[in-house]
């Protein structure tokens, strides 16, 4: 008979408050095959783990069930403890009596009964557990960083500086991301471009970094240490190797009236262009949608004027396959738009703010371009409608954010600070101007942040009105802002020259599609999910994939850079080893019984199943069977459920283990 040890954790009071842990331990002790059962205040603590190790030795345990929190929390902890006690770690299971029991039930009797049932189920399972030996796989010491904003740049530089190769993939023609668009940055008001561009150049010049701009991730295969990624390098129509970045093409391009998206459409650019002067790489791209050559074939000026002959109208998208061992996802954010949203989108626009049709109602990023010395106005604050300098500017915070009725309930975190910054920048440039800010409350935790916000009010004379804006409308050349001041308890109406909306920070469009390619999870807003909110804020649940920046949740620059460096550190930790142990949760074929119908091969999402010939000693083919490559197997078990004779079995989730659990019903 088995000798199972059951350890019931109180989790302080988290479990014991609703579950009678002593009773659960006593009940467990009655289960045949259980040699030892006890309860303890904190099983995960050092003494708790010590208790477990001691019991393994004293009671000669051959299996362990720790009834505590979710295995997603501490399975590793206890398996390691089991291992150090000399037990195969896969003979240790967790019974989740916290998240699945004590926290979700209030009735003590019911919760205790359920906890006992969960323990019984896991005892049944552990009896059928087999010793498993981790699989070692080589680590490709080469990282993929997706996104070339400040997060991606920082992560790429850190990894590259540690001596590892990095492939950096950016969707836009240049790296830089949103930070390249900003004017000054809070709380120090140093110029964004000034601190950003050197890093961009470092990326371009770094011998360990391969940069793919104007590129997207097409496919991701493989697993930690051994990913195979396919990058779609979109046709730039300019041969990067030949282009010298002289800029003649852009200067001579007859098509000049294309709204400049980098400048939030405040200015114009030609059809062949670099997004901004400091772009990296400084290689133009032809906007085929607007280029006359591509529209009707009637141009060709850029090709004629290009000295090095770098223009290639025939260029096609290229697919580049790169092996990498780790992936950092840093795809950043975009701003909530108040325009009318397509039907079915959970996010709603702002009809009461004119759905984006009032020209002098802009968002924060547009204001950044207005205030930027390298922006379309050279840093002069003028309003989009008539180019006049606005004398009264109203800033509205929490547009979209914290507005459940608009589809978003979270706080965008950066708006309080950047709005304070905007009022200052405005005051610095328009000395006689007045800034008003409508806010719900100011959220300024962070080093020197609150001081900064106070300065905006106290020294830069921004008027902060606590209250919401109910309506914006055009009246003559003014925008009337109707709101309430809850402090004074009156309705407020301001005739503004310009209104700046701090719209919510959202994940990039298409974040879900990329997540599906990567096999990582995301929340209902499509922000990527970290493995653990507190203890694994950088890792994805999918091994070998790490998160950096606003793709995981709204973040300012310091937080983003920290997380990017943290992600890089995780990658370096991984790359510090030549081989990686991975969980041996892989499928194996019983070659005796396999009849090679190859259903397993047909359903395998990883292409891990091959045909294998069994030959006799003379080399004659006896039969063909399926073979699962353990290095490629992802461990989903779809093969086993599809196999008619169950001749393929997923270690760790065998039929015997599952059936034993069902048996306890």
């Amino acid at each position, binding site marked *: 008979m088995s000798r199972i040890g059951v350890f019931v954790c109180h989790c302080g009071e988290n479990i014991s408050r609703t579950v009678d842990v002593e009773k659960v331990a006593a009940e467990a*002790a*009655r289960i*045949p095959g259980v040699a030892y059962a006890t309860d303890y205040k904190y099983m995960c603590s050092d003494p708790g783990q010590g208790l477990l190790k001691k019991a393994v030795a004293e009671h000669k345990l051959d299996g362990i069930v720790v009834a505590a929190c979710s295995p997603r929390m501490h399975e590793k902890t206890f398996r390691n403890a089991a291992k150090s006690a000399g037990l195969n770690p896969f003979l240790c299971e967790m019974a989740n009596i916290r998240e699945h029991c004590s926290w979700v039930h209030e009735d003590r009797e019911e919760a205790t009964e359920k906890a006992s049932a969960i323990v019984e189920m896991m005892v*049944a399972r552990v*009896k059928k557990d087999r010793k498993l030996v981790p699989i070692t796989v080589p680590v490709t010491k080469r990282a993929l960083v997706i996104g070339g904003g400040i997060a991606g740049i920082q992560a790429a530089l850190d990894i590259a500086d540690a001596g590892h190769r990095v492939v950096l993939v950016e969707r836009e023609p240049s790296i830089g991301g949103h930070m390249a668009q900003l004017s000054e940055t809070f709380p120090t008001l140093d110029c964004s471009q000034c601190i950003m561009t050197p890093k961009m150049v470092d990326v371009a010049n770094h011998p360990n970094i391969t940069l793919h701009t104007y590129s997207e991730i097409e496919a991701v295969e493989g697993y930690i240490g051994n990913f195979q990624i396919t990058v779609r390098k979109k046709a730039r129509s300019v041969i990067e190797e030949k282009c010298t970045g002289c800029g003649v093409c852009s200067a001579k391009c007859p098509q000049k009236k294309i709204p400049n998206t980098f400048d939030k459409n405040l200015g114009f650019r030609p059809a062949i262009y670099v997004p901004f002067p400091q772009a990296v790489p400084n290689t133009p791209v032809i906007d085929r949608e607007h280029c006359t050559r591509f529209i009707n074939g009637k141009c060709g000026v850029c090709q004629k004027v290009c000295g090095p002959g770098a223009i290639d109208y025939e260029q096609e998208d290229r697919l580049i396959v790169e092996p990498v061992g780790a992936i950092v996802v840093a795809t950043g954010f975009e701003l909530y738009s108040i325009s009318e949203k397509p039907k079915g989108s959970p996010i709603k626009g702002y009809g009461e703010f004119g759905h984006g049709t009032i020209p002098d109602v802009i968002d924060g990023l547009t204001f950044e371009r207005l205030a930027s010395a390298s922006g379309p106005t050279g840093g002069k604050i003028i309003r989009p409608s008539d180019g006049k300098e606005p004398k009264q500017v109203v800033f509205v915070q929490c547009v979209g954010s914290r507005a459940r009725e608009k589809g978003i309930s979270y706080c965008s975190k950066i708006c309080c600070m950047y709005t304070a910054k905007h009022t200052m920048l405005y005051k610095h440039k328009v000395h006689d101007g007045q800034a008003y800010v409508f806010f719900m409350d100011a959220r300024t935790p962070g080093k020197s942040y609150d001081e900064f916000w106070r300065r905006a009010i106290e020294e830069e004379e921004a008027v902060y009105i606590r209250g919401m804006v109910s309506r914006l409308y055009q009246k003559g050349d003014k925008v009337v802002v109707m709101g309430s001041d809850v402090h004074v308890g009156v309705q407020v109406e301001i005739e503004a020259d310009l209104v700046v909306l701090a719209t919510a920070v959202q994940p990039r469009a298409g974040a879900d599609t990329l997540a599906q390619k990567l096999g990582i999870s995301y929340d209902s807003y499509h922000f990527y999910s970290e493995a653990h909110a507190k203890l694994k804020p950088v890792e994805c649940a999918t091994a070998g994939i790490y998160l950096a920046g606003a793709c995981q949740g709204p973040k300012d620059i310091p937080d983003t850079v920290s997380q990017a460096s943290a992600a890089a550190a995780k990658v370096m930790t991984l790359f510090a080893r030549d081989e990686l142990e991975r969980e041996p949760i892989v499928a194996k074929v019983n070659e*005796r019984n396999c009849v090679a119908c190859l259903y397993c091969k047909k359903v395998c999402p990883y292409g891990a199943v091959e045909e294998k010939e069994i030959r006799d000693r003379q080399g004659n083919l006896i039969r063909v069977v399926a073979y699962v490559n353990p290095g490629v197997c992802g461990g989903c078990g779809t093969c086993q459920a599809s196999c008619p004779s169950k001749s393929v079995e997923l270690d760790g989730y065998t039929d015997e283990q599952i059936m034993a659990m069902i*048996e306890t019903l």
Partner: protein
Amino acid sequence: MPKTITEQNLRLLIDTLVKEGTRVVGPRAAGTMTLYEPLATGEELHLGELPRRSAKEAFFPLCETILTYEKDKEGVKVSDIDPARFPETVLIGARPCDVAAAPVLDAVFSWDFKDEFFLERRRKTTIIGLACTKADDACFCTAVGLSPSDTKGSDLFLTPLKDGGYRCDVVTEKGEALLSAHAGLFADGTGEPLPLAEPTLGKLDLEKIRNWLDSHFEDPLWEEIAQRCAGCGACAFLCPACHCFDIVDEGGEQKGARRKSWDACGFGKFTGHASGHNPRDVQPQRYRNRIMHKFKYYHDKFGQRLCTGCGRCIRACPVGIDIAAVLEEINNK
């Protein structure tokens, strides 16, 4: 002195027995077929055709529990099934080809190990045989030395009469006891019996066949016949004389039952060893064993043969294997 019983009284006899608490098993209409099943009333007796399954079920159940177990902290608690609880049974209306198999089976279940599961059921079963008046082209009882009016194995024996009702012959003391306990339902006298069934297959020289088998363990015949065998158990399960069984534990680790159920030598895993080795690993070897067992081994040991010519295996075989044809072929060699 010969007795007779009317159709009506025969059914009344069943009703009476059922009321007394006896399990009465007899041919009963069951969907598209007739089966030997417990009768709730005499009305249910359905003598028109040969039941699809043989009558062996009355004392050799398709599946029976032989013990139950339950595991707790203290150990395993095993409860044996007490054969004393087997029901007193009257098997009524069974054909000679079914009934004749019973004494044949007694031999194997009592020669060395006494199988109380079988023997106690046999002791508690009184068999009322019925002469057979209808044969089809699969029937061959006469070819293997039986006849449609053979009383072998019966305790009482009924012969259908031309004018209705049955003549009832007492074969054993057990039969006598049953009859005297219900003497009121029987009358003295006799009548003219209905003509008996006439199977078409000529008489086989079973001794010659056994001799041939003795010297032809290896023979192309086995491959020729059995390469078509699909390996199912229809023949064995329908046969009145096949008696192989399997014992399996069912249920979980905590509690369950040990059960005995019919097995068939045609199954691929029948002779499978735990090691994975299978001494009879192709179908012809399995079919050879079937014939050898029925017409040689069993006879060598017990002087009887495991075939009564009921023809069920012939009718049921999905691939048309015809044991009568096989015997005929050997007979003609």
